[in-house]
C-alpha cells in the first residue's frame, strides 16, 4: 500500500485538494487528518475537495476524516466535495448519511 505524501495536498485558489490513498482505514486516516488540518490553518482555505480517484477501499474512518474537516470549515461557510468516488464509496456515503454534507461531483 502506497503512503500518502505531501504532494497529495494542493491548494488551488481557496480550495484544498486532497488526493486520497488507495485504502482509507484507521491506520491511514490519522495522517490525512493531520496534514489536511495543517493546510487548513496555514492557508486561506475555504473548501475541501476529496479526490477518491485512487481509492479502492474505505471504512468508517474515512467518514470521520470527512466529517472532521467539514466541521472545521463549515462554520466559515466552506463546503466539502468528493470527486472520482466509485459506486462503493458512494454507497458508504449513503449508508452513513454523509451525502447530506458532501457534494459528490460527477466527472
Amino acid at each position, binding site marked *: *500500500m502506497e503512503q500518502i505524501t505531501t504532494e497529495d495536498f494542493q491548494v488551488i485558489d481557496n480550495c484544498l485538494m486532497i488526493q486520497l490513498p488507495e*485504502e482509507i*482505514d*484507521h*491506520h491511514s*486516516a*490519522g*495522517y490525512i*487528518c*493531520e496534514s489536511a488540518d495543517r493546510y487548513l490553518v496555514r492557508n486561506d482555505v475555504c473548501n475541501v475537495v476529496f479526490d477518491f480517484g485512487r481509492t479502492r*477501499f*474505505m*471504512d*468508517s*474512518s474515512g*467518514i*470521520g*476524516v470527512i*466529517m*472532521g474537516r467539514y466541521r472545521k470549515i463549515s462554520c466559515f461557510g466552506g463546503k466539502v466535495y468528493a470527486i472520482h468516488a466509485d*459506486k*462503493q464509496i458512494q*454507497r*458508504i456515503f449513503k*449508508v*452513513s448519511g454523509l451525502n447530506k454534507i458532501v457534494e459528490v461531483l460527477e466527472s
Partner: protein
Amino acid sequence: MKNEMEIIFDAVSDNESFARVAVAAFIAHLNPTVEEMADIKTAVSEAVTNSIIHGYENLGGYRKGCVPEHPSEADLACPEAARRKMNPGKVRVRCLLEGGVLHIEVADTGKGIENVEQAMEPLFTTKPELERSGMGFAFMEAFMDDLEVESTPGAGTIVRMQKKMGVGDWISCGPSR
C-alpha cells in the same frame, strides 16, 4: 461444504489491512461480487479497528491522543515513548463458510464494552478526540446480514457477523440459473 480458518495477530493498526485482505482471500474461491467483497472487507475492518483502538486502546497508528489514561511518572517524563507504548493484546478472527453463509467472528480480550446497546447507536463514540465517525457498528449492521455483540467489561468482546453469499448455489453445484 464446510470450510474454516482462524488468524491471530497483534492489536496494532498496521494489521487492519492484513485482517480484511486475509478474509477476502478466504472467500475468493466463491467468486463473490465486487459489492460482496467490499461489504465484507468493510465489516471486518470496522470490527478489527474497534478491537485495536477501543478494546486494547492501541492508538499508535493514529499518531494522536495516544497518551495512557493514567500516565506514570516515566510516561510524563517522556510522553513520546509513552505514546508509542503498545498493549500487547491479540485479535482473533475466525471465519466459517457453511451452506453458502459466511460467519465471521472477531474476538479480543481487551477492556470490553460497558453498554453494548449504546455503543451500537450510530454516531456514539467514547473517543470523540480521535475524530472517528461512531459509525463502526452501524456499518457492520448495514453491510452484513446479521450482527451479534457479546461483551464482558474487563474480559473482552466478541463480534459475530453473518452474510449469505450470493453465489452459494453456484459453488455447491446446485441448479444452474
